[in-house]
């Protein structure tokens, strides 16, 4: 066990304003600060000595970061929303089923009740299971500091293994994305070393809309665990978009997507297996749509 670092200050701010001021002040002082949401990543990393914050800001009390809300055209999810809350939300089920499908397979009920959207983005892991769904939904990450507010497309926000675009004085408020066209299908498939409570070897999210004539009107595909960040399969999307979805086209897409990324071999899986599963997951997802009629 690495030596534990003494935590010098532990704050429980009541408002976003208060939180932002704390962040600004601490950033000036130069002490390492960590926001604590569900704690399901941060505690693991602190125990392993990969993170040694001197100051903890627990954002449990920030009700402003809590809700799931809709406008005419978009949905917004607060950073403090947990996976369990996403799973229970009829709004998410109706407009962004791909999120529900993914949340169902994140950890197990204990993790689902603690882990949050903000924490997932803060960690920015290539195996974060919520990121591929957010990619295919074209989500934007909403960040705020004392004197700035930014909307960052999720694809730009995640930058590398454990790296994101967040500035030290910024708080993630939540994510926002346009409502997909009615009738668009969410696809999800996750593979890990076991069937629950598992870290993805490969994960796949898709948002596909077929028009009346089975033509692909909208196609966004994203994968986790095959690159340093979760990533869109742009070439394969281009191949499929505007085409009539047929078994032959699906097979072509399967072959193409296997070559689109350069996954690695690590202790969880191999390069060649990951490539192949990218194809199998895509084919199974799309074939399912064809069979649904």
């Amino acid at each position, binding site marked *: *066990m690495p*030596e*534990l670092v003494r935590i010098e200050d532990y704050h429980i701010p009541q408002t976003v304003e208060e939180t932002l001021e704390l962040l600004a002040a601490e950033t000036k002082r130069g002490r390492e600060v960590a926001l604590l949401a569900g704690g399901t990543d941060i505690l*693991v990393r602190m125990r392993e000595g990969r993170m040694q914050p001197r100051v903890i800001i627990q954002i449990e009390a920030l009700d402003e970061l809590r809700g799931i809300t809709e406008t005419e055209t978009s949905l917004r999810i607060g950073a403090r929303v947990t996976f369990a809350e996403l799973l229970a939300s009829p709004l998410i089920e109706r407009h962004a089923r791909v999120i529900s499908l993914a949340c169902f397979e994140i950890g*197990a009920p204990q993790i689902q009740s603690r882990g949050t959207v903000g924490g997932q983005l803060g960690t920015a892991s290539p195996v974060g299971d919520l990121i591929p769904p957010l990619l295919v939904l074209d989500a934007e990450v909403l960040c705020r500091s004392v004197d700035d507010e930014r909307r960052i497309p999720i694809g730009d926000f995640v930058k590398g293994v454990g790296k994101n675009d967040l500035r030290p004085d910024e708080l993630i408020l939540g994510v926002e994305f346009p409502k997909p066209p009615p009738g668009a299908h969410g696809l999800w498939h996750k*593979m890990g*070393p*076991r*069937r*629950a*409570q*598992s*870290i993805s070897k490969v994960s796949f999210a898709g948002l596909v809309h077929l028009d009346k004539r089975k033509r692909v009107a909208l196609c966004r595909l994203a994968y986790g665990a095959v690159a340093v960040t979760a990533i869109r399969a742009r070439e394969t999307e281009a191949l499929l978009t505007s085409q009539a979805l047929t078994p032959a086209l699906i097979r072509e897409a399967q072959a193409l997507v296997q070559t689109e990324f350069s996954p690695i071999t690590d*202790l*969880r*899986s*191999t390069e*060649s*297996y990951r490539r*192949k*599963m990218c194809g*199998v997951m895509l084919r199974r997802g799309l074939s399912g749509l064809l069979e649904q009629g």
Partner: protein
Amino acid sequence: MSESTRHIGKPIPRIDGLDKATGALKYLSDLRFEGTLWGKVLRAAHPHAMIRGIDTSAAEAIEGVHAVLTHRDVKGLNRFGIAVPDQPALCEDRVRYVGDAVALVVADTEEIATRACAAIVVDFRVLPVVDDPLRALEPGAPAVHTDGNLMHRNEVSKGDIAEGFEQSDVILEHHFSTQMYAHAFLELDAGTGLLDPGSGVLTIWCAGQYPYRDQLQIARAVGWDPEKIHVIASPIGGAFGGKDEITIQIYLALMAIAVPGRPVKLALSREESMEAGTKRHPFELDVKLGAKRDGTFMALDFEMVSDTGAYASLGGPVMNLAIEGASGPYVFPHTRIGGRVAYTNNGFSGAFRGFGTTQSCFAQEQMIDMLALELGMDPIDLRLKNALHTGDLSAMDHRIWTAVGIEETLRVARDSRIWRERRERQARHRPPLFFGTGVACEMQATGLGKGIPDFAGAHCDLEPDGAVKLRIGGIEMGTGVNTAYCQMAAEILGLPMDRMRIVMGDTGETPDSGTTTASRSIYMMGNAATLAARDLARVMGEFVASHWGEGFTLRDGAFVRDGQSVSLIDIAARASEMGQRLRGEGHTVHPEADRDFGDGLPHIMYAYCTQIASVIVDGETGEVFVDEVLSIPDCGRVINPQGVEGQSEGGVVMGASYALLEEVLMEGGRFINANFTNYSLPTAVDCPRRIDTVMVEVPEPTHEWGSKGIGETVTVPICPAIVNAIFDAIGIRFFRIPVTPERVVEAIEANPDCRAARAMSSAMG
């Protein structure tokens, strides 16, 4: 078995079930005493290195540190090891694996102890690492110990192996490999030590599978009078063999001696426990099997190498049991079975449920499956044809005169729904899903073996309130033996279960009952408990005769004589008045084989088990789902069917995970996946969809109730049964476990002619 019983054979709820479920039960790792200090172990930073110096001055200077200990502070032998004490408690001049202990710190808090450990400066000179057992045995390999890396070699034979193969019509030859595998017990190694300065008694509260041997190992290592060491080792939150060897008891003793009067607690993290503790030995196995065209087994040749890591522990005996179990429960006229055990810098391996037979059974039961295919025989019929029976000569050439129930288990298997419907169910699956069914058998040596002292004692006391208390030196590690012992004693005494109490695994409270290993508890301690209860009945009978007169008999928990009844409460009250303690004692010794092959071989009693597994393989993703399992142990007479079912289901889950999922990964003597983030254990949804257990009861005549242990055998054949089922499903043999999805996909690609590859390509085209 027609006699009516009150408790025996009944699904009596576990006596500790409620307390475990509610958390009321305190494990030894839960105990916290007033004024406890915290200990910490400084482990080797390298898998192999010389120690040129240890400087503890900076650590000692830290405020809150009470003691920093190195080998210089150890008064005794400073060594432990069940079979050969070759492992340093605190290393002197050399470390041989990353878990080797170099120093101990006692401090006010765990944090301070951790900081002090980091402040100890050890001057290491790194040595070349040997991390491959085959390379370790080659000349010129870096030597882990001064007398070389060959820790043990053994070989048994029967008949004339060359002649056996000459007479064979079919000969198969294959190589197999098995992985390193972790016990992954839930309760981590943790405990407390306390030296009472007044009495000089050193008390150690720490889970261990044999408290009396722990007492001896502590005494020997630290140089303390064993009579002045009190070990409390039960209950245990999971062990599976992983707490057979010393874990932290000696550290607790050394630390407690350094701070008399203060309790010292030590609790390992999961990573530290994984790196420091024993594992299941990885094996390489070469097998050659010969048979007649009609299926008669003629010859079996086995050559094995195991990687025991840095120290001996039970590396020798594990190989011996791999040898003894290699034939499986079959008759072979000609055999030659040998194995070598290599030292390496890969952690250290030792006892693990299945104990070597796990590895040889994995190979052998696939060989038999391949033979059945080659001969066009049903795999169960082939096994039945060669099945061992009481009175037969074993593959080691000793006569087995104890009960053998393998044929009965195979008959149950052959008539089972899962076996009869297997082709029908297979035909219902469409690519890319493939359905297959496999079977395997095992014989698991039970008891400690020829020439190894194998005894058990039990006391049965009448308590002052008229309840009865069993005292047994074995431990309860989750198997439910405590309930079974109480059932046996309650049956003898005619008492309801709620009048029974039991204390286990405490050198101050219980007699020596030997180890809680080798599937020996129900047999040995069950016998001792039964004899003790019977002895208490005799003692009480004599007491009643002298206080109430002659002619009383024990019936339903009271002594009766025409209308007159003396209850145990009456007897207890009278005995208390007189200042007398009424105690029954039971002592038993394990029967032994007529021949002696040395090294504890052979055994005379075996547990037998047949298991069938059906699997669904996804030919595209390589995922294997275990659909149904039928587990058929030969238990002798069942004491508690719920207990057997629990063992059987747990064993199946463990063995299935050995086949498909778990592997301890090492590189250059370092652990890659030492915690549960990356060492994946099965969750509830990874378990087989359905597990059924059918208990075959062929009574063992040398046991008071006709019972024997099944704790290990239920975990062994499931692995080859699954691998055989995978073959049945996709037409590919896996000679290496675990059979991961990556390996399945790779194998299907490499074998375009296999059943799965052909079916999938024709489904596509």
